[in-house]
């Protein structure tokens, strides 16, 4: 097992290097420099001023040297500074991380809490009214553009009904509120974004839970349990679900890049200052240190997620412990 783990971990290195190389290449191939935003078409910024800034930022160096310099820093966990505001990239990321993680985690928990029971009950009677209804419902969330659902939610619940704030994370007077009221204020602001993200995310998981459950319910030990006269609830959630959950673990590891993509759009619409927004702004401003850091860390987390899922899978199912790959 240790040898396997070591081999897998070593296998991550070329993938990670490949990712940094590709993203560095893409950033450099893309026309434009990080200095553009401040200097392009600003008649007060002379050509000399621009060249001076590029020199100061090290952008006049040959590409391979820029890449190696970056790699050397990253090896020491230093992602350098953002070209846009001169702050350490690490600071920027740490500042934005909590919001995005909170929202995604909240959405993920809700998805789990809703999708798994939906899938399980749908599996009890595949093709029944409940199954049909939920199938169409979850597929609607999956098939609609997320930003469209978000806009409709804002327009109806935010503007017409005024139940929830249109956007943002805090009320203007948030700071003056007591601790409890502050928490409620933030939660109130999060209802729409988390709600929309949950609705969009239901389909994948509930379908997995459903098909996994259908599979499991056909197994002999379920029949045995039924024969023993156990309650249907106990059969479903104790015997059935435990085994049906297995494949679900694996899709979580792969969900990360999708979450980042989803965050870009949701955070823009709801004016939430999170990682997705940071990433989008950085790509558009060619702020290459920020982009590289986010892509590298995102990729690393994805790869570790995959690895973890594989390990969990192997641990739970001895049949695949050896000889996979």
């Amino acid at each position, binding site marked *: 097992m240790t040898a396997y783990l070591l081999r897998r971990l070593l296998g991550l290195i070329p993938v990670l290097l490949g990712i940094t190389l590709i993203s560095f290449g893409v950033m450099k191939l*893309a*026309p*434009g420099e990080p200095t*553009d*935003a*401040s*200097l*392009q*078409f*600003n*008649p*007060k*910024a*002379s*050509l*000399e*001023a*621009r060249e*001076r*800034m590029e020199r*100061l*930022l090290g952008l006049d160096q040959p590409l391979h040297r820029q890449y190696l310099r970056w790699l050397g820093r990253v090896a020491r966990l230093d992602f350098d*500074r953002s070209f*846009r*505001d*001169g*702050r350490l990239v690490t600071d*920027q990321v740490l*500042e*934005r991380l909590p919001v995005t993680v909170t929202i995604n985690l909240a959405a993920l928990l809700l998805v789990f809490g809703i999708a798994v029971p939906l899938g399980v009950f749908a599996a009890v009677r595949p093709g029944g009214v409940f199954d049909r209804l939920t199938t169409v419902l979850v597929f609607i969330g999956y098939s609609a553009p997320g930003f469209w659902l978000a*806009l409709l939610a*804002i*327009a109806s619940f*935010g*503007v017409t009904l*005024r139940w929830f*704030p*249109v*956007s*943002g*994370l*805090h009320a*203007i*007077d948030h*700071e*003056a509120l007591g601790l409890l009221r502050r928490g409620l204020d933030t939660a109130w602001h999060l209802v729409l974004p988390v709600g929309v993200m949950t609705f969009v995310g239901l389909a994948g998981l509930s379908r997995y839970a459903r098909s996994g459950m259908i599979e499991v319910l056909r197994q002999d030990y379920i029949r045995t349990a039924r024969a023993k006269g156990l309650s249907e609830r106990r059969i479903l959630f104790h015997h059935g679900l435990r085994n049906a959950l297995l494949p679900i673990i694996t899709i979580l590891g792969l969900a990360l890049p999708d979450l980042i993509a989803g965050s870009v759009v949701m955070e*823009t*619409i*709801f*004016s*939430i*200052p*999170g990682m997705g*927004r*940071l990433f989008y*702004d950085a790509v558009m401003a*060619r702020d290459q240190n920020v982009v590289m850091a986010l892509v590298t860390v995102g990729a690393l987390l994805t790869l570790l997620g995959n690895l973890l899922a594989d390990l969990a899978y192997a641990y739970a199912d001895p049949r695949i412990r050896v000889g996979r790959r």
Partner: protein
Amino acid sequence: MRRRFVRYAAALVAGLAAPALLAAQSQPVSGDALVVSSIGDASRLLPLLATDSASGDIVGLLFNGLLKYNERLEIVGDLAESWTVSPDGLTITFVLRPNIRWHDGAPVTAEDVRFTYEKLIDPSVLTPYSSSYQLVESVEALDPRTVRVRYREPFAPALESWMMGIIPKHLLEREDLNTTPFLRRPVGMGPYRFRRWNTGELIELAANPDYFEHRPYIDRYLYRIIPDQATSFLELLTGQVDLAGLTPLQYRRQTDTPYIRRAYRKFRYPSFGFTYVGYNLQDARFADRRVRQAFNLAIDKPALIDGVLFGLGTAASGPYPQESWASDPSIRPSAPDREAARALLAEAGWTDHDGDGVLDRDGRPFQFTLITNQGNEVRRQVAELVQQQLRALGVDVKIRIIEWSSFVHEFIDKRRFEAVLLGWSLSRDPDLYDLFHSSKTREGEYNFVGYANPEVDRLLERGRRVFEQEERQRIYREVHRHLAEDQPYTFLFVPDALPILHARFRNVAATPIGIAYNLIDWHVPPEEQRYRRMSP
């Protein structure tokens, strides 16, 4: 020299007196907050490094320069109580107001001004503004309130360059300006003090009780970052935003609801900039002035303004808005005249010989590509209308829309274009050296159309060397005449700025410089105040 000083001082007094009079009429009470929405976040809150509009907005409230423009676009003193320009134009002496203090209580002195200058020309500071100070020979602090700036040669735009915000020496002396924590919690001397900055979400400023003019009446200034235009408008519909910029479409069609009519006020004034079609003058077809003149006659500017800006703009005859003293009032925007345009083109050899509806010369049809940048809806629509109008003249125009970065690097900088649709937003000084002087044609410089007229070169050089207003006016009006005659650009229109502001704010007026010039005098009657007072 004496006479000049008296005139400047008079302007200064007039500038101060006007808001005071207005304020007296309505008994302002302090309190409440102004919530402003912005598409983007600020990046560095230091005048020297502020390049994006968000940073500029905030820095403008935290820091003052030595001079400023008043609402009639005249240069008046800001931190400077008075200033004198020596007769040879080589020395400017500023005298600071007494008793100006930084937000931390330290006095603002001439040393701070000298420090600001030193940082502006320091090659290790990431400022794009250094070029305005290249001609400075020395900056001396004669005493705590007096600064003397010497120039190597006379440089008229210098006065505008001293509108740059002054930064505190005692806080920044030992800091690396590019990375100092000061950039995120700045200390200035302006009407508002910095309170907090939640990245990507909100910047909050609080009224400065010790501001040298008087404490602003509005207690708090809240700058909300709302990146999505649709969301921003929905926030307005629910009254969560007090001040925002509207698009022409929103101004004309979407703000006509009973709620907005009741709760908000819309303003309209010409912005300082213009939209134009620029031609690559290296291209033999466009090198012929008659072709450019013909296009100017063929393009129906009022139709563009009606169609794209919903009438919210003014047709342009040159680079200056009509309100500018540099604009020659005798030059009117040309009335569309297709027949005259056709005649000019025929003179230049372009007629429809083969009868296919497209003009041709030497067997080659008149066809070119007009490029513009992606992401600007107005420009895209203008391009389409220009295409239609030139089509009616018999010129076949293709449109290509290109992402901003590659637009600049691959097409403009490398001169790989035939015609380009763009806009300039300019400072108030009429100097156009960077845009039209024949020396500014290197890659990355702004005379990318390649305009070269020795007479205009001479005028632009001279215009930078004289301070005398009448003389400058004569010079720049002549520049205006040359440009209108040569048509290196087809100057299309000056769009209007369209702010919308919650109606509870009083003492607000649209002026050529905008509505925010007297922000410190805005106030809200106590019964209409919305946001509670916060302890500082």
